[in-house]
């Protein structure tokens, strides 16, 4: 057998460790450099499913309504989550249009969809189609979903405008704040070891 399922290797310093069972809430850390090796997570499957479905509903709300409104001298202007992308595109900054669209809309959406896609079949005892590809995408896109950073951008924008004009938050903004919370919880509940431990899943299959 060439697979060493009892071992785990530290990503950061290459030290080999033997996997031991952990108690609830415990984290296994590398003995040499202190990097996190793995965590024991309870009910990961149900949590991730619930949170990613909630997240998708909030995502629709966050994109379907107005985000903020701005009023000055009797004139007002509203925006939505995606209008920054359009405005960058319209004014010739297509690189920024693509970047903002990817990291604030597409990648968070992909993150939610992939979590649901991977976990839903496992819940019903099946192996998701193209699991390997979906899993690799899920891991690769994770650092590029930047909704929480976007939220701070919103905060700075509000502060910058506050002495210039009246700003009112829209439905989308509230949904967006909830979505960030839900996505953080979902990603924290994600147990990648569970995905491969599921029924009918053999290494190499």
């Amino acid at each position: 057998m060439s697979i060493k399922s009892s071992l785990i290797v530290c990503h950061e310093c290459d030290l080999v460790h033997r996997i031991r069972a952990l108690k609830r809430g415990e984290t296994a850390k590398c003995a040499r450099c202190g990097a996190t090796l793995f965590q024991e997570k309870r009910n990961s499957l149900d949590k991730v499913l619930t949170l990613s479905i909630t997240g998708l509903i909030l995502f629709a709300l966050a994109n379907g309504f107005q985000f903020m409104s701005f009023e000055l001298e009797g004139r007002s202007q509203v925006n939505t989550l995606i209008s920054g992308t359009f405005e960058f595109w319209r004014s010739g900054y297509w690189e920024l249009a693509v970047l903002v669209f990817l990291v604030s809309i597409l990648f968070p959406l992909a993150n939610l969809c992939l979590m649901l896609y991977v976990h839903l079949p496992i819940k019903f005892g099946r192996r998701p189609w193209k699991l390997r590809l979906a899993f690799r995408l899920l891991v690769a896109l994770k650092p590029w979903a930047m909704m929480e950073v976007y939220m701070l951008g919103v905060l700075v924008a509000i502060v910058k405008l506050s002495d210039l004009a009246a700003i009112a938050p829209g439905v989308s903004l509230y949904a967006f704040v909830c979505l960030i919370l839900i996505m953080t919880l979902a990603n924290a509940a994600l147990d990648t070891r569970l995905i491969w431990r599921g029924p009918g899943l053999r290494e190499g299959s």
Partner: protein
Amino acid sequence: MNRMTARKMSLDACHVCDLVMEGGSSGGGCLRCGSRLHRRKPDSISRAWALLIAAVIFYLPANLYPIMTVISFGKGEPDTIISGVGHLFDAGQWPIAALVFFASVLAPVLKITILAFLLASVQFKWSWRPKERTVIFRITEIFGRWSMIDIFMISILIALVKLDAVATVEAGPGATAFAAVVILTMFSAMCFDPRLIWDNAEIE
């Protein structure tokens, strides 16, 4: 288990799904998730340097050109990254000003400096304090993305403030360069392999 590295035991560990397997048993791909396997990230040092140097080059236009222009009652006022932070301080918005100062001014400089230091330390095979260097790398990788705050702020302002001559915000070329700095340093950090720090420490 004594302190053995996967390389010494000729084991391959998958970066993506954490599976450990005997070296050469897989034909280059992870037996479980199919990701490409390598004991050390390929060309780690030269790739990370190349991306870091590109980030340094973009750093100049990012700070010299305006990132946005606020046109208020017909008068335009271009803002660079630094002057944007200055306005927030002038307006007495200390917490937000401090946040933007950290994210837009301090974080990119720190990240570039730290990555350059770590790359140099690996390239010249220093064995000095491997654990501390690993921790510094870990922290650097986490805070880099927060530098995107300014880009998102601009994307909101340009979409919201467009009342023609009364008040309009336009993006400036500095914004593209600044986004490039952030993205390039993120890629550079991803190319850097912290295990190289330990390889040199073990030589002693």
